[in-house]
């Protein structure tokens, strides 16, 4: 598999009232095409910062390459879903999903067809003409995912996509994401604070240290994702990896408290 995302020596310093804060320090990561990689770590470790740098939303020192080309800003090759949905509240569900195709000047009929198909994928038929304020959190996040998929990006960047949802909705959404990923096999980079979520969804989990963040440990997850949730979650491999990742994150969090 060719390298899709290559992160080399990425560091990021924020200017705050208390002076300069080093958020990321010399982070390296290679992600292969079709991989699902999760970033976990103590809160404030810069995992979202790293995702935003890959997205091209923040500048940083070091280099990020996508398909061998250096990232210098946001691009349609990378679709994003944020924790707080970031939907356009002034557009209906349909118009939100069509936004990407529309700004890229696709014919109106094609935009409509893309949105139509994705509304079925996310199961929101009948809600096309609602505004985001009329939707629940889970429905909003579905729209955000559909809106991302409408641009047919080759990379999906997910920033704690289910963090704001209740436990039941979160599991349903994870299953839907897994189904979509198995179908489309896009490269995914996901930030989460939920170790179970990371193990359930990803091929590889990178644990980051407390600030200044860098990747300190990696875990490969070998699970047959075609089974049911029960089969996956109750397997020995799932339990083994989850315990390892959980311990690793705990150690990093403990280090953060001590320093």
């Amino acid at each position: 598999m060719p390298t899709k995302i290559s992160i080399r020596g990425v560091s990021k310093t924020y200017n705050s009232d208390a002076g300069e804060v080093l958020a990321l320090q010399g982070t390296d990561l290679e992600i292969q095409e079709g991989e699902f990689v999760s970033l976990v770590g103590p809160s404030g470790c810069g995992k979202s910062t790293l995702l935003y740098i890959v997205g091209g939303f923040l500048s940083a020192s070091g280099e990020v390459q996508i398909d061998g080309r250096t990232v210098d800003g946001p691009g349609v090759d990378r679709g994003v879903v944020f924790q707080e949905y970031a939907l356009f509240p002034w557009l209906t569900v349909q118009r939100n999903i069509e936004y990407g195709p529309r700004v890229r000047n696709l014919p109106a009929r094609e935009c409509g067809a893309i949105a139509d198909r994705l509304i079925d994928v996310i199961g929101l038929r009948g809600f096309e003409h609602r505004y985001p304020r009329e939707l629940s959190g889970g429905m909003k996040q579905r729209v955000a995912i559909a809106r991302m998929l409408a641009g047919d990006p080759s990379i999906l960047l997910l920033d704690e996509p289910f963090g704001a949802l209740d436990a039941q909705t979160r599991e349903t959404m994870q299953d839907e994401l897994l189904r979509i990923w198995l179908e489309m096999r896009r490269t995914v980079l996901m930030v989460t604070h939920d170790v179970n979520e990371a193990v359930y969804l990803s091929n590889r989990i990178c644990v980051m240290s407390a600030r200044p963040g860098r990747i300190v440990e990696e875990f490969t997850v070998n699970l047959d994702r075609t089974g049911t949730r029960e089969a996956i979650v109750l397997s020995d491999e799932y339990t083994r990896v989850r315990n390892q990742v959980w311990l690793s994150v705990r150690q990093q969090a403990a280090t953060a408290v001590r320093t």
Partner: protein
Amino acid sequence: MAQSIVKVIINAIIRLLPIAIVLGIWQSVASLHWVDTAFLPAPVGIGRALGDLLSGHEIRDNLGVTLFRALAGLALAAVSGVWFGVGMARSWIFNAIASPLVGATYSLPKTAIVPLLILWFGIGSTMGILAVYLTCLLPIIVQTYHGVRATPAVVIWSAQSMGASARQILWQIFMPHALPDIFTGLRIALGFAFVVAISAEMIASTAGIGRLIFMYGENGSYDYMFAAVASIVIAAFLADRALLALSARCLRWHPSHAGTNLGATA
């Protein structure tokens, strides 16, 4: 359905009651001759004067002049104020240049410069429109600025990652995000527009409701003066309602526009 109609009627009665009570007390005080009706005319007398004025073209012509000045000044301020606010929010250089000007003139009562405007532009509509324009400009600039600045980074990033250009982000992201604040600014400005248009006419003018009020006051025709005041009160109220209706129509998507939420769940 029948119940909701009853509710609407009861609601209307409750809302009109305070006005009716004030008018009732006012009328009784006047009818009982506790005050001199030469100085505080009774509502019935004012109504008669208003009817008299409306049958002629006195009110109609002067109200037209005042409305034209107020609304033309407001419209010009809306167009330029929105661009000024967007410019300040998006360009730090423009913000550095403009913000001291905005800060210094924000709290200045614009009527104070009316004499100066008269000196430069005479006492016609140009002066009136300009005074209204300068007054309305600032709340619109300030509200637009805040609306644009408050656009969450993740919303802008989402648009960028879907391929939106800077121009598309301006029109499709910043403008709609600022729209609720722009409407707030417009509503504040609308109130100011009538105050300043009338004040300027009272200071010096050959036409307008302000001049009419001032003239009747000078002549001691207080019932006619009150009738002129009532006409502008009604016009300003209707203009405010029209603006509210427009904003409700444009902001159907906004969370503050509740009532149609059908309580959707996942």
